């Protein structure tokens, strides 16, 4: 028993710690950053990491640690709102499709999902930003739209399995309509799946935001963003590798942290694993 407990938290703990660090840094950046990220200091540019600038300075003389902290804000906010869009729209669609399974509404919703899924996410994101102009808000919308079918499919698939169970039959006999059954009986039973998927989508959202910012379609300067820090430092890698190294590492670590957390949560929340 002790061994299984240990292995069940093997992913959860490091994942949770990493995610807490990034959320903590993002929240802290509202009150405090070591240096002002809007103030350029050309004379101090591209300094190597030292006691004053822990991670060095960028090509405009801004403190990289401060930039990463404020950039965490952008990344996490974009990913969080995008995943929320996916959940708020996708989950009800999935529940609806499951309760009307096999009928025209189910078909309509699921074929609509297939349609969105058929396009590569980045292409649609580029299209949206080309029409409405590049900004963090449009990046959120673009990433959010692509989270909708993910949650809709997951919800429908999981809900279909539960609709066949005896207690649902009991609820029906008791006179509950399908909306109440979906909310009161189906949703609580698939919540753990949604939480796990949400965490994974969150990490994909961070990657998508970094990718869009990298190609110049995400948050616009001067708002710091991890993806743009990478893009800006691209031609400078020969001179100052730390300019690209730190934002790159932060992106990797945050995605790794969220994936570990997602895996850990699945192990922890899965009732079959819990029973053992």
């Amino acid at each position, binding site marked *: 028993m002790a061994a299984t407990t240990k292995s069940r938290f093997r992913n959860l703990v490091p994942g949770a710690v990493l995610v807490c660090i990034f959320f903590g840094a993002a929240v802290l950046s509202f009150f405090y950053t070591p240096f002002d990220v*809007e103030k350029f200091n050309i004379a101090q540019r591209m300094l190597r990491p030292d006691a004053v600038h822990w991670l060095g300075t960028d*090509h*405009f003389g801004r403190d990289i640690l401060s930039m990463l902290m404020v950039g965490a804000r952008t990344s996490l906010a974009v990913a969080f709102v995008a995943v929320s869009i996916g959940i708020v729209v996708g989950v009800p669609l999935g529940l609806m499709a499951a309760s009307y399974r096999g009928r025209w509404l189910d078909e309509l919703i699921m074929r609509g999902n297939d349609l969105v899924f058929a396009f590569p996410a980045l292409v649609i994101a580029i299209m949206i930003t080309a029409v409405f102009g590049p900004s963090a808000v449009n990046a959120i919308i673009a990433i959010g739209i692509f989270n909708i079918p993910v949650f809709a499919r997951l919800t429908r698939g999981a809900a279909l399995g539960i609709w066949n169970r005896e207690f649902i039959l009991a609820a029906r006999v008791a006179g509950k309509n399908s909306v109440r059954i979906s909310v009161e009986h189906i949703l609580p039973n698939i919540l753990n799946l949604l939480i796990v998927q949400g965490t994974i989508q969150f990490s994909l959202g961070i990657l998508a935001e970094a990718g869009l910012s990298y190609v110049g379609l995400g948050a616009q*300067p*001067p708002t710091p963003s991890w993806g743009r820090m990478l893009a800006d430092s691209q031609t400078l890698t*020969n001179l100052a590798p730390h300019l690209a190294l730190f934002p790159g590492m932060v992106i990797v670590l945050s995605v790794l942290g969220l994936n570990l957390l997602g895996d850990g949560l699945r192990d922890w929340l899965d009732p079959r694993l819990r029973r053992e």
Partner: protein
Amino acid sequence: MKRFIQVISSVLLMTFLSTAAFAAKTDITLGMALEPPNLDPTGGAAAAIDEVVYANIFEGLTRFGSDGSVNPALASAWDIENDGTRYVFNLRPGVKFHDGAEFTAEDVKFSLDRARGEDSTNAQKALFANIAEVEVIDDHTVALNLTNADGNLLFNLAWGDAIILDPASADKAATDPVGTGPFKFSNWVQGDRIEIVRNDDYWGESVALEKATFKFISDPTAAFAALMAGDVDAFPNYPAPENLPQLEADPRFSVVLGSTEGETILSMNNKSEALSDMRVREAISHAIDRQAVIDGAMFGYGTPIGSHFAPHHPSYIDLTGNATFDPEAARAMLKEAGYIDDLTLSLKLPPPAYARRGGEIIASQLREVGIDTEIENVEWAQWLEQVFKGKDYDLTIVSHTEPLDIGIYARDDYYFQYDNDDFNGLISAFNKETDPERRDVMLKQAQTMVSEDYVNGYLFQLAKTGVANSKINGLWENQPTQANDLTGVYWSE
């Protein structure tokens, strides 16, 4: 044994010498950041067109030398008559177009009439505005009758926009250019490269290169990699100044710093609400720390300017003192104009590093004096559409690379929307003036006027940062016009 070594070494030495004698390369690959939209310099404004065709494929009556001087080209000599209102050009005999057609005075008349005609799409139509009539005297003599005396005529005719075309092939110049130059157009792989080959029937001195390839690499990182790998032999306008120290230290390359005609300016829309107030424009000029922009965006490569004028021109005067870096004064002026901490301007940035990086630096400097900017990164096509044609902008950063182009401030409807009758009068008087001393005085007046009206924020003169294989000789050191003249280029071994 000793003898054996001698034989071997002499054989080796001979092989080495003989291969060396034949090893001097006769082809060159040049890197360019932008691909030309077409190849007709008389029908497009893009600098990249001239960078391929000027002096290589097409020639005009006169041409620029690498030092900016105006030299004879298809016209071997000229006489100025009637107090400067009539120029008689003697054309070179025996010149042939690449398709074999003879070059005659009729071609000159055709080309100039085409360029200045009603439905001409020439990007620099103003260059020809003063020509009243092109008169063919005989096959090899042509006269230009002018409306007014014009001291700029020979200079104007040296521009890429004034090259001479053959009536038979003029219409297909955009894709299959036929000129009189030392190179013939050979191949264009869209999105990748343009190849030109030596014209063996060239009228002038034969060129050393047999073939030249212009390769288009817009990404600075890829440009660096291409140089390092030897995929391109030279990058006459190397796009990433940050790599220059490293390339300079590499014995395989030589880095040549020269001057260009590129006045890099923070253009302001003089008719937008806040910027129509000169105090606001002056405040912006004082808010900018030019040296920080040069260091931060160009890694120190660039000369500060105080007006729209190249520092290497003899008539240049240093006006940087009109817009010293003084944030306090800038704040005071904004306060007086009623815009303190209450002004948001759009700042549209085209792709080059001077604009994208420079723009972020300027945005941060403007923030210091209480002006907010909304940065928008645009591609060149968008820039031409929105800023240059649509005038839908407040601020933008761009390098004006045409030679001696202060006259653009007198143009109606130019995108700065500067409108000053005194200046317009000065420029039209300058265009008529032929006396060098009075022209010099007028140029100085013009520089002072745009500087003191704070039409734009004057940042720096773009440096020509050329990188080339150190065995290449004869590339232009400076850039008096947009060109990659290959006539004098050869490999040494």
